[in-house]
């Protein structure tokens, strides 16, 4: 349960960050309060985890760009502002608190059946990471290739049939081809 342990570490790091470094109530959370790095690996099977340089990203992006309304910064998105203009800081700002890691499971889907729920379309954890990171990286020229951020594991090589699992002249191309 290597992944579990690491995940726990990440969560702990975030929790410690939240407890020790939480700013005074009422004021917006400061970027300096945040952890230096966050290890993103709760989903690592095909790819290894990412050591996300949080400190660096706080210099090139504002908190709300990734954390939406949860850090207490000014909400500008016209859709979010309808409810979150004054919702202030949340108790937690970590991605996985809001974005489910079991997206599309029966439980996840049935929760979204609630007719009173507005956030029926909230991405799961994996989707949230990639949609946020990749979209911004595309705009700002950051890395966008899969292996620019995380190396493929052996399980990944197997599924993608690449590396040592790549098709060869003799094994590949059962496809009728041209």
């Amino acid at each position: 349960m290597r992944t579990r342990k690491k995940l726990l570490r990440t969560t702990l790091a975030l929790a410690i960050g939240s407890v020790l470094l939480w700013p005074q109530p009422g004021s917006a959370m400061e970027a300096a309060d945040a952890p230096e790095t966050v290890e993103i690996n709760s989903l690592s099977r095909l790819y290894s985890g990412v050591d996300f340089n949080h400190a660096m990203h706080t210099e090139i992006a504002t908190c709300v760009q990734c954390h939406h309304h949860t850090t207490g910064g000014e909400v500008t998105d016209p859709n979010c502002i309808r409810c979150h203009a004054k919702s202030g800081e949340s108790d937690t700002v970590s991605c996985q608190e809001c974005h489910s890691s079991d997206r599309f499971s029966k439980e996840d889907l049935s929760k979204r059946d609630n007719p009173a729920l507005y956030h029926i379309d909230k991405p799961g954890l994996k989707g949230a990471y990639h949609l946020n990171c990749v979209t911004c990286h595309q705009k700002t020229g950051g890395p966008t290739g899969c292996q620019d951020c995380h190396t493929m594991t052996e399980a990944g090589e197997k599924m993608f049939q690449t590396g040592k699992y790549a098709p060869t002249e003799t094994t590949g191309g059962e496809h009728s081809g041209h």
Partner: protein
Amino acid sequence: MKTTVSRRTFIKGGLAGTVAATVLPEKKSQAATFEGYPDGMGVLVDLTRCVGCRSCEAACNEEQKLPQPEKPFDDFSVFDEMHHGQKRRTDETRYTIVNRYDVPGLDHPLFRKIQCNHCQEPACLTSCFVNAYTKTPEGAVIYNPKVCVGCRTCMIACPFYIPTFKYSSAFNPRIMKCIFCYDTRLKEGRPPACVEACPQEALTFGKRNKLIEIGRQRIRETPDKYEDHIYGEHEVGGTAWMYLSSVPFDQVGFDTHVPKEPILNYVKDFLGIVPMVLTIWPALFAGFHLLATRKDWLKNKNEDTHEEE
């Protein structure tokens, strides 16, 4: 056998044979009353999110135990491949394909995933005269390879060119197409392998009705980002797999001329070509045998509806 260019001409040739066809009694269309299941599941494919990583293709290959591809799934040169002037398409070795589209005026390419759309009123199902196809309450369109006679009517009837065939022998044809991961996942309420693999959540799995709600919400809240249309909400009477796009759908390879009603009526016309197809097919004898034993099979059908693979 590759089926890229010949289908339309095949249809035309087939229609010429309808004269001969009229001697056969018309198919009793029990399928005419079929409608989609209210709680059926579906997938909303959002082209604005897809980055062309091909994870879905790799996952499908693994899940469906399909043959090894010619190129690894992290080889992006496949996007430049052209076969008879057309982009890659699904076949008996790959149930799903992602193609790249360079849209004029856009500074980035768009990617479109193709697979069976799991129509609410599937033309493949209504056209099949041995009832090889089933639309399950979960939304999947699956098939029973044991009764298929390889006549290829479904291939012609499908508005999206999806069913293909594998011939291990002339008497043992087998339909091959995306089955929504029915037997390994959907049946148990789990998302298909391709959906689970997608890093971008470009594939959203859920109840079809909910997906339409989600699609509308995305369009409503970010109108600049989307065409005001969910492809598949009404096309061919509705499909379980639906699409959102940032550009007009015909610019990313979608057939925007498909009818808004089910293909059923059109299929009835197509049925005339079945005998024609049969006469040119070696499976003719297998077909006769099947027709003869079909009554027995139908009787048993209710008892083993899960026979399909």
